[in-house]
């Protein structure tokens, strides 16, 4: 059995500087990481964002191609943790929808999602329930329990919840007047946000109801979205960077773009730490090896 904990090999060898470096308390590493991330937030480095990934272009192209008045369904399924990554993407996509004159319908499958729909509507549309076009161009369905079970019930009958999150009766809203089937197949595009798994919107909206879907998803679960790209989804935004790229594409750099400097330094410091750790590990194995022969 090769391997074996680091400390075992060290006990026999003399403690070199590199091995002493290994034994520093994790608290110092936390401090280094804190400084590395705080510095660029106070004094931005202004690093260029770099090339925009094909997934982001795919989503941008798909939304840009939607004609005016097409219905875009926003599933804002994010809690506070995911919102730190995906709120900029949500607001960037809403700005694009506003520009193209799309009709918007909001939904969330988890309780903490509602404040983020409100915040996005306030920031982009200027108002939420008392917006002049509310009920005509914009509808906020709010929270439906039981994630995909609740959503499937809603998709089969858009009037399932009876009223929107503010209590207005859905059947009297002009938004639903000219929808042919009053089911999810009337949507023209679907976008999911947050750290739930991306595949849910393909499994429960795209395939059964024939609606093209994309996402503004947390980076932590973005690796799960690639098996659907490009055949079953035009594209998706990967975390804060996806939001920053989309802000550049719609020509309105904002919240996300400013955070990328800190991302860069944080990533760089973690890579350096992994390299130092592995160099020390290889050195100790070689020394351990020499001693045995």
């Amino acid at each position: 059995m090769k391997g074996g904990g680091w400390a075992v090999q060290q006990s026999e060898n003399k403690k070199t500087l590199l091995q002493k470096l290994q034994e520093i308390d994790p608290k110092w590493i936390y401090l280094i990481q804190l400084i590395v991330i705080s510095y660029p937030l106070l004094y931005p480095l202004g690093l260029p964002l770099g090339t925009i990934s094909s997934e982001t272009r795919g989503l941008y192209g798909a939304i840009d191609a939607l004609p005016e008045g097409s219905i875009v369904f926003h599933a804002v399924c994010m809690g506070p943790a995911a919102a730190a990554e995906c709120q900029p993407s949500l607001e960037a996509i809403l700005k694009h929808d506003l520009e193209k004159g799309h009709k918007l319908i909001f939904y969330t499958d988890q309780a903490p999602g509602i404040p983020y729909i409100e915040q996005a509507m306030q920031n982009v549309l200027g108002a939420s329930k008392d917006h002049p076009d509310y009920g005509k161009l914009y509808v906020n369905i709010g929270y439906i329990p039981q994630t995909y079970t609740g959503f499937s019930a809603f998709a089969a009958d858009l009037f399932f919840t009876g009223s929107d999150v503010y209590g207005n009766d859905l059947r009297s809203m002009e938004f639903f007047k000219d929808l042919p089937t009053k089911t999810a197949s009337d949507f023209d595009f679907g976008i999911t946000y947050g750290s739930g798994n991306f595949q849910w919107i393909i499994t429960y909206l795209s395939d059964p109801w024939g609606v093209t879907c994309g996402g503004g998803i947390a980076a932590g679960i973005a690796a799960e979205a690639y098996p659907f790209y490009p055949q079953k989804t035009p594209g998706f935004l990967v975390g804060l960077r996806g939001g920053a790229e989309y802000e550049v594409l719609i020509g309105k750099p904002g919240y996300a773009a400013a955070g990328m400097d800190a991302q860069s330094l944080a990533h760089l410091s973690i890579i350096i730490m992994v390299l130092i750790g592995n160099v020390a590990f290889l050195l100790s194995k070689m020394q351990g090896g020499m001693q045995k022969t």
Partner: protein
Amino acid sequence: MSIINSELLRRYLPWGIAAFLIILTMADTVVIEPTINSLASSALQSSTVVGAFVVIISVLLISRIHVRRVSRKRTVIESSVLLISMWGTLVWGFFRLFGAGVGPTSDTTILNIFDMIVSPGDSTVFAILAFFIASAAYRAFRARNLDSAILLVVAILCMLAKAPIGETIFGLGIVKLTDFVLNVANTAGRRVFLMAMILATIALTIRIILGYERGWMGRATE
């Protein structure tokens, strides 16, 4: 009395309902047929409402644990903070919902509690994990064999490509290489997991329908 405690009501009826609903909702997904679709859609709608009540159990379970901990003087301060913050928010919320008809989404006190405690709590608890990743990266991420070497190389590539500094240092090559890795190796690996998840769901469904799986029924003894 014997009917109520009979084996039928205790075991077989819940199992029968579960098996029937699984088959009904599966059929509804696959077939366009008026009776099945309408029956299944009302099953889904009522299940959504019934499911909203499941949170009762977690509220009462957590309360029982922490009341016991306060009475046994083990963690008095923290447990009473939890009980006060939970039941305070609940009572105020229900009073507003049923009394004044103001839902939790528009009641200012509930929104303030969300902004003050729930929102910073959720994001900070997960933010701490980034510090653990940094310390583990330094002290424990080792390329001890080919597997972990592949893993670390791909992780470093993703970190470089997704942060602007990667491209400024290594140029466009790093982005192209990472796109290839993400769209090929990662896609293949993730696809295997997606398929494995469905195989597990198929196995679980059959064991429930055939009655071999009783975990969901709770106490097996009764």
